[in-house]
């Protein structure tokens, strides 16, 4: 036992390493195959994504990237202000009791499956928005963007609150002792002191929004167009992968390989964001 167990445990720890390797190699190999058929220059520079057209197909990732960034931007416009405001309320204003009631509710919000949010976006938020914005298409960027933002609020709120709560009380007392209001203490003293953690939470939220699939697949549509019009149907990188794998794109076709190229792009985007978040919280960590 004494000899075997450490080795067995090391083996289980290795699984996570193999998972990462598996992801990287899978994406790399299949993406290579894709680039043997479609030039990487076209992939990066063409402005159209028309994979289904066999004769005059075009594989320019740009429309999928803009679709992703568009929904992500809308989501952030909701999640960052609301999440940060809740974090400030919970860490600076709320009593211990209020905090104990509200935090679990936010956890529930974060625990709802994304398909449920997708359903909510398509069957509730979109019809509601259509009453306000007459030209809004059934599938559009706005509705899933907003709902995705709501889904991400708890993440921003909880991570930012952690960062703000770790600012020592002595510093708060220093500010209050000078006659600061709670608002001034929160915004001018605590927030700057917790900036690294707060910004890292924003970056993680962006990463989460970029990788989110079901909400945009259900309510965003499947029209890869290069647009910044939020009322139009768009397609995100994730929604494209869903569209291809739901349908019957045969194994070995260019379309089949294209999902790996898109997946690779997605992976690079989210990894970059995660590494950035780690860098920010490490590099700018405040020492009190």
């Amino acid at each position, binding site marked *: 036992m004494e000899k075997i167990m450490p080795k067995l445990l090391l083996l289980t720890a290795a699984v996570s390493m193999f998972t990462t390797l598996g992801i990287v190699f899978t994406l790399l190999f299949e993406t290579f195959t894709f680039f043997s058929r479609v030039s990487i220059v076209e992939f990066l520079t063409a402005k159209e994504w028309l994979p289904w057209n066999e004769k005059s197909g075009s594989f320019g990732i740009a429309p999928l990237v803009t679709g992703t960034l568009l929904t992500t931007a809308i989501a952030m416009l909701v999640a960052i202000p609301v999440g940060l405001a809740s974090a400030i309320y919970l860490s600076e204003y709320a009593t211990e009791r209020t905090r104990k009631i509200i935090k679990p509710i936010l956890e529930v919000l974060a625990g709802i499956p994304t398909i449920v949010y997708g359903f909510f976006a398509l069957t509730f938020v979109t019809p509601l928005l259509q009453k306000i914005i007459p030209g809004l298409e059934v599938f559009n960027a706005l509705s899933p963007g907003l709902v995705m933002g709501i889904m991400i609020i708890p993440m921003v709120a909880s991570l930012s609150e952690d960062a703000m709560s770790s600012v*020592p009380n002595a510093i708060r*007392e*220093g500010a209050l*002792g*000078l*006659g600061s209001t709670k608002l001034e203490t929160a915004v001018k003293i605590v927030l700057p002191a917790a900036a690294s953690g707060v910004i890292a939470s924003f970056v993680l939220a962006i990463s989460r929004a970029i990788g989110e699939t079901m909400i945009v697949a259900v309510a965003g549509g499947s029209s890869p167009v290069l647009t910044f019009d939020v009322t139009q149907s768009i397609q995100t990188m994730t929604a494209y992968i869903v569209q291809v794998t739901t349908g019957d794109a045969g194994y070995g076709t260019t379309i089949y390989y294209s999902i790996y190229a898109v997946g690779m792009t997605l992976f690079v985007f989210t990894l970059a964001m995660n590494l950035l978040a780690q860098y920010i919280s490490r590099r700018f960590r405040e020492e009190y």
Partner: protein
Amino acid sequence: MLTMVKEKTIAPTEEKAVVYRTKELNLWYGEHHALKNIELDIYENEVTAIIGPSGCGKSTYIKTLNRMIELVPNVRTSGEITYRGRNIFDPTYRVEELRTQVGMVFQKPNPFPKSIYENVAYGPRIHGIRDKKILDEIVEKSLRGAAIWDEVKDRLHENAYGLSGGQQQRLCIARCLAIEPDVILMDEPTSALDPISTLKVEELIEELKKNYSIIIVTHNMQQAARISDRTAFFLNGEVVEFAETDQLFSTPADKRTEDYITGRFG
């Protein structure tokens, strides 16, 4: 008995203005009765020291004077504290207003994680002073007032966390001076400092007395004897004795005071 280092001159009490008057102050943390029927007058331009063993309520009392105690959950008070004739517990008395008149220096130096300049300019800024020239002037004056100007004048825009503990505490005093308060509360300001830094802060208090009324909580009796004009001895949430410092240390009226200052307990 302690020998007095300096000759203290105290004007007759009748002539001195009362800054703070405490009447029948009681305070509870939940069920715990922490302050019992406190009666205490604080005089203008004097240093009032509050001494007593740990847990006697001296810190609680000083934090009540600028209502900082309200940050602790489940605190209840009864009785009255008037500052310059106004009851500080009056609901119309805004705590922010009180705290612009009554500055506070804490047990451990607690500078903001900002530059030295920003630390001092913070107070005046939030109170509406925007003029860069006036701010510069205030910063210099406050840092000089806290006897730290010469040490930091060349690095005003460096982070305050680069300063030593003693320098940080003097910076915190400067930060407090910047809003030109009337009273300065000091809650064991030297307890986290080395002897040399402590000496500097003590000299500074001596200097500040000319312009400010100072209330200092200390667990160090020698310190109280060295720097204060009047001393209150707290025990188990009560004021056992309150007298001129020389008198309290040379001829204590209460047996318990005598026991404490001769080191028999505490």
